[in-house]
């Protein structure tokens, strides 16, 4: 038995399909347009930091800027506080004045604690950027941070300065030549400290690479 269902004639169905397609095409344009709106919102402080550092030509080399401050000896060995940042010459150069203000506020701890200081505008504490740093301070924009690492270690002054010189590709200086390459400054609590500013071609190979 053939099952017949009630329904319209073929011409009626064709007309219906034409109306259906036309309706779809017309309705396809029915989307509310995007609008530009204006409103008031609570102010949010900008925590991104100073303007970002633009990229520099690698041939300009690297520059280390920092402070070396004497700390009380431990077990008969000289100790130093290091405040060190490393980057391209122009980017580091923009931190000279803020670092001077930082040094002017720096106070060494009387005992085992951390030094005290005022952070220049736009500088913020961050997580330590490497295993040797006790704390790091971001000195630039969030995306070009150029951190200054705060660390404490022992050794002779000449050995530590030569280590920094080696990191920017400069040759070692003798113990007699070292004082001439540094600038003595006085920090916030009157302690004499060393201002280190060295620039070099950069280290093209890591220290453990074969010569």
């Amino acid at each position, binding site marked *: 038995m053939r099952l017949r269902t009630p329904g319209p004639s073929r011409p009626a169905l064709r007309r219906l399909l034409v109306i259906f397609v036309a309706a779809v095409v017309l309705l396809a344009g029915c989307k509310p347009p*995007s609008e530009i*709106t204006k409103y008031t919102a609570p*102010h949010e402080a900008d925590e*991104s930091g100073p303007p*970002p550092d*633009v990229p520099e*030509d690698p041939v300009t080399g690297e520059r280390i800027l920092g402070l070396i401050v004497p700390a009380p000896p431990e077990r008969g060995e000289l100790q130093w506080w290091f405040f060190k940042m490393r980057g391209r010459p122009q980017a580091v150069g923009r931190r000279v004045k803020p670092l001077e203000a930082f040094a002017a506020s720096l106070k060494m701890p009387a005992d085992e604690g951390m030094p005290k200081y005022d952070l220049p505008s736009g500088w913020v504490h961050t*997580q330590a950027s490497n295993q040797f740093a006790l704390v790091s301070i971001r000195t630039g924009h969030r995306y*070009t941070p150029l951190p200054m690492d705060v660390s404490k270690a022992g050794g002779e002054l000449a050995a530590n300065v030569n280590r920094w010189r080696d990191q920017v590709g400069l040759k070692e200086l003798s113990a007699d030549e070292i004082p001439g390459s540094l600038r003595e400054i006085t920090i916030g609590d009157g302690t004499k400290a060393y201002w280190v500013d060295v620039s070099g071609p950069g280290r093209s190979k890591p220290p453990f690479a074969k010569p």
Partner: protein
Amino acid sequence: MAEANDNHDYVGATPPSKAVRTGPSPLYRLLQALASLRFTAILFVLTLIIVFFGTLAQKRDSLNTVLDEYFYCWLAWVDLNLISDFTQVFLKGVRLYGTDEDPGRLRIPFPGGFTIGWVMVVNLVAAHIVRFKLTWKRAGIWVLHAGVIVLLGGEFIRANYAIEDQMRLSEGQSANYLYSLDKSELVFLRPAGSGSDEVVSLPGQMIENAVGALPISHPELPFDVEVVQYMKNTSDPARPISGPVPVKFGEKNLATAGLGLAVRLNAEKEISSIKGDRKINLPGCYVTLREKSNGKAIGTYLFGTAIDDSQPVGPDGEWRAAFRLKRTYLPYSIQAIKVERINWPNTDKPKEFKSTVRLENPTTQESREVLIEMNRPLRYEGRTYYQSTMDTGGPANLTGFQVVQNPGSHIPYVACTLITLGMAFHFLLKLIDFLNRRARR
């Protein structure tokens, strides 16, 4: 016997006043056409096709894109090349179109979800008008079909009016805004005094549509905005942390000002809903800002939702700009007091996620602590806050809430109740009928 006259074709002295109708009215014939069972069958086939392709499309596109392009629209553009993705499972290397590396899209127009849904409703209502008798025997069918219509209508309301946003807080942090996961905005901000900013917002969709077109100009905008490049996504789900990468010296760079001089964003593939691992698309753009008075270019800036911060724009630094996930500001704030993940004893498997928050509403003078946990959301001022994500592995515990505003949230319950009652009543009547017939034999 009266005969037809040579001058007219009617019998008798007076002409008939009106033509006698010999069939149903045109309106009834239209209803009959709309009530056609053949038409119902065609609509079911269209539904199968759109669901099939919409499911396959999620392999490449995000869920929200698929919903917008296949279901929440009147006209869909179905990608026939998705069949190749399907047949790859059985016939490797055989494709209708494109290659595995560059599959391409082969789109055809097709009725969208809204069209099929509404035509189904019209078909069902017409069928009831034309064919179904209003009797007790058919009452179950009427109620059942009413439930189906309510379900379709409820989904239409949800598609057009429901809003889903997110709120993400670290322990101790407070927020008074929600952000969208699939909409973005380019905002220009300047201080407006009293701790507030004046914000002018361009929808991300407008930015996307303006690539290569004339600059966007509007009285509220501080600059004319010319879109140089738009990237639908700049985050790679394969990388644990995505974001801006440093620009190398000498590298070609569209940016001539701002943050884009130092960093860039990579255009990545749109994150599909099956590979996204809960990551979302983070769009970005390069725009040239021009002075309104003379059209002079101020600079080409990089903006992106992957970049957290606003940046100063313009010659005098009065304005800042950012491209961010679209925000909805609230008249109240929520602060995360305690964020807890509780594991099953002696395992790493989570048993519970709960967040204790403080709700503060200066308008109603409310300040109270509320617990939000799985299956116990916070319902407040038309929004429902569901515990959605939690990250307790980092330096600060993070909690994420999915915030839903849906005026049709109760409609599916009503619809399912009607459908259940209709089916139960109809089957009960059939059962009684059957038992009576058996008793009579």
